[in-house]
Structures are given as structure tokens and as C-alpha cells.
């Protein structure tokens, strides 16, 4: 269980406590991505191992660190879970099921596969439709929730991703890249909640850069020869 956390001191305690309650037998790692608050201390106080970046690298960098940690500690599946409390650890078994059954390599907890309680802002929804379309065009598979931060990756995927991973937004381009490498993706309906506290990684300032970056990166992944 990998939790990328950047200044999440407010929501982290709730998330960690819920994790312990609902998934007590799962190893948890907090990747403190250059936080300037008590994020790392809060996790340590709860006995959760913490890997701390000296500077802020972004979600992608935090995940990459998490993958390498998981691989070095011999784990076969890595699960990404947002520290802000949006994701219910109670869905963990549903998320893991397709990987455990050997049906896919990456399992994505999706807000949109089935009708769930989640309603995103309009701009966000537009982006979701756009990048869902980009992924479908690129790999011929429908992934409705490309930005989900609740995903499970098997060992083979983590092996690749520990070296080659998008730095800031591990979304559509990552999924396209993985699909073209021959990994199978699957979506699992998940309910998401509003954030507990803190700031989303996707802030207003990034809202212009985000579509540009991910469209360009998606294109580049497509131009790259599948390997």
C-alpha cells in the first residue's frame, strides 16, 4: 500500500487509521514527498514506515520511490492510495481481485465505471472525457477514469515503472505506455469521497499545463516504438 503524501498532516491520521481498521493485514508505506509539515512524524507515530524525499518531486516521483521500496521488500503487488482520504480502503479486495485472478496487470479504481456517488467539477469532467478518449484511441480500450489515484500494479509493472515513470501526472500517458508494453488494464468501480483536508495535487495553476503536458506525452508514447 503506497501513499504518496505532500503536506497531508490533516488527512493522513484519518486515512492511516481507516487503513489499519479496514485492511489490517496489508503493509503500508507513506512516501513523504518533501512535506514541510508533520506528515512524516504522524506516520511514524502510527508505526508506518516512511520514506522521505528531501524535496517535492510530485505524485509520479513518490510512486516511483514506493515501487522501488515495494520491490526491494519483496512485495508482488503495489497499491497506490491517495493520502487525502478520497479512497476507501474497504474497496481494496475488489481492486486486487482481477490481479489476483491473473486477469490484468494494472487494476484501476474508477469513479465512473458504475454510477457512484462522485460528481466532479465541469472542467474536470471535460478533462476526463478528453483523456478517456485519448486512451481509447491509442490503445482501443475504454478507461473511464484515467486520473484515478487508486490503482494496483503487479510486480512486472512495478519493475518497469521504478525506472520509467511520468514525473508529475501518472495518468493517460502512463496507461497508454503500459498497454503498449503488453500489460493488461482493468477498471473496478470504486466509490470516492470528498477530500478529508489539504490541497489536491491538481491545482488551478496546473489546470492549463495539465492538458498540454498529457496530450503531448500521450502523443510521444504513441510515437515511441512499443518495446
Amino acid at each position, binding site marked *: 500500500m503506497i501513499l504518496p503524501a505532500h503536506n497531508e498532516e490533516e488527512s493522513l491520521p484519518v486515512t492511516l487509521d481507516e487503513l489499519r481498521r479496514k485492511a489490517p493485514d496489508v503493509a503500508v508505506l507513506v*512516501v513523504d514527498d518533501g512535506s514541510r509539515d508533520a506528515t*512524516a512524524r504522524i506516520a*511514524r507515530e502510527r508505526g508506518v514506515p516512511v*520514506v*522521505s524525499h*528531501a524535496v517535492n*518531486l510530485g505524485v509520479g516521483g513518490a510512486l516511483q520511490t514506493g515501487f*522501488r*521500496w515495494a520491490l526491494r521488500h519483496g512485495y508482488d503487488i503495489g497499491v497506490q492510495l491517495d493520502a487525502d482520504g478520497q479512497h476507501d480502503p474497504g474497496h481494496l479486495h475488489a481492486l486486487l481481485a482481477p490481479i489476483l485472478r491473473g486477469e490484468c496487470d494494472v487494476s484501476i479504481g474508477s469513479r465512473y465505471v458504475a454510477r457512484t456517488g462522485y460528481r466532479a467539477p465541469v472542467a474536470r469532467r471535460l478533462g476526463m472525457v478528453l483523456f478517456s478518449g485519448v486512451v481509447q484511441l491509442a490503445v482501443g480500450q475504454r478507461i473511464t477514469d484515467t486520473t484515478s489515484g487508486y490503482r494496483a500494479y503487479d510486480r512486472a509493472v512495478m519493475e518497469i515503472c521504478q525506472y520509467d515513470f511520468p514525473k508529475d501526472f501518472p495518468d493517460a500517458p502512463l496507461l497508454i505506455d503500459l498497454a503498449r508494453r503488453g500489460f493488461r488494464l482493468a477498471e473496478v468501480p470504486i466509490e470516492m469521497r470528498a477530500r478529508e483536508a489539504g490541497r489536491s495535487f491538481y491545482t488551478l495553476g496546473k489546470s492549463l499545463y495539465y492538458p498540454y503536458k498529457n496530450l503531448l506525452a500521450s502523443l510521444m508514447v504513441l510515437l515511441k516504438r512499443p518495446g
Partner: protein
Amino acid sequence: MEFLSRTQIISALAAVGLALYVLDLVRRRRLSEEYSFLWVVASAAVAILGFSTPLLRAITRTLGILYEASTVFFLGLAFATAMLLYLSVKLSRLGQENHALTRELALLRFELEELRGARPAGTPPAGGGGPA
């Protein structure tokens, strides 16, 4: 033989001055040879064009530019653009390396703390927080 225009002389002298300064930076090890190369070549080019009117004339005519001085500035601007692009590439690579190092450092620090045994809860992480 025509007289050199004032603009030509000034840009040529500036180019020579720049080349000397770049070489001095290299001598004092403030600038690596790799980066100095482009600067020296470029300032040499401007200096040559500044002194050699026929060559500058020929280039100006070929490019369809009206004034010789404009050619010098055009080439300078082209060089500056190329240099900026080159630096952006270098910066991207530096960023990637920095990224990888930060991740590896974090993992190594984790392992170090593990090896030292469980630290008492509530103690700040080694090296965390304060600036280096």
C-alpha cells in the same frame, strides 16, 4: 576596400571581449570546457564577420537582408536561441538526474534508519526539514 562601419567595429570588439571573458572563466574553472565551446565559436564567428566586410556582404545578400549589421544581430539572435534550447535540454536531463538521486537518497536514508534500529516514535527524521 571599404571602411568598416562603426556598428561592425563595436560588435566585433564586443565579440572579442566576450571570447576572452569566456576563456578566462574556463581558466578559473568557473565554466566547463563543454559549455565554453559554443560561446567561443559563436563569438569568433561574430568577430570574423565584424572585420571581414566581403564575407558579411555575401551572407547578407544570400539571406536577403538589407543591412550588414542586421546580419550580425540576426546571427547573434539565432545563436542565443540555439543556446537556450541547448540549455533547456541540459536542464531537463539535470532535473531527471536530480529526481533519481532524490528518490535513491530517500530509500537509502530509510534503509539506514532501519539498520540503526527502530527510532523512538516522535523524533524528527534525520536531515528532514531544515535546509542543507
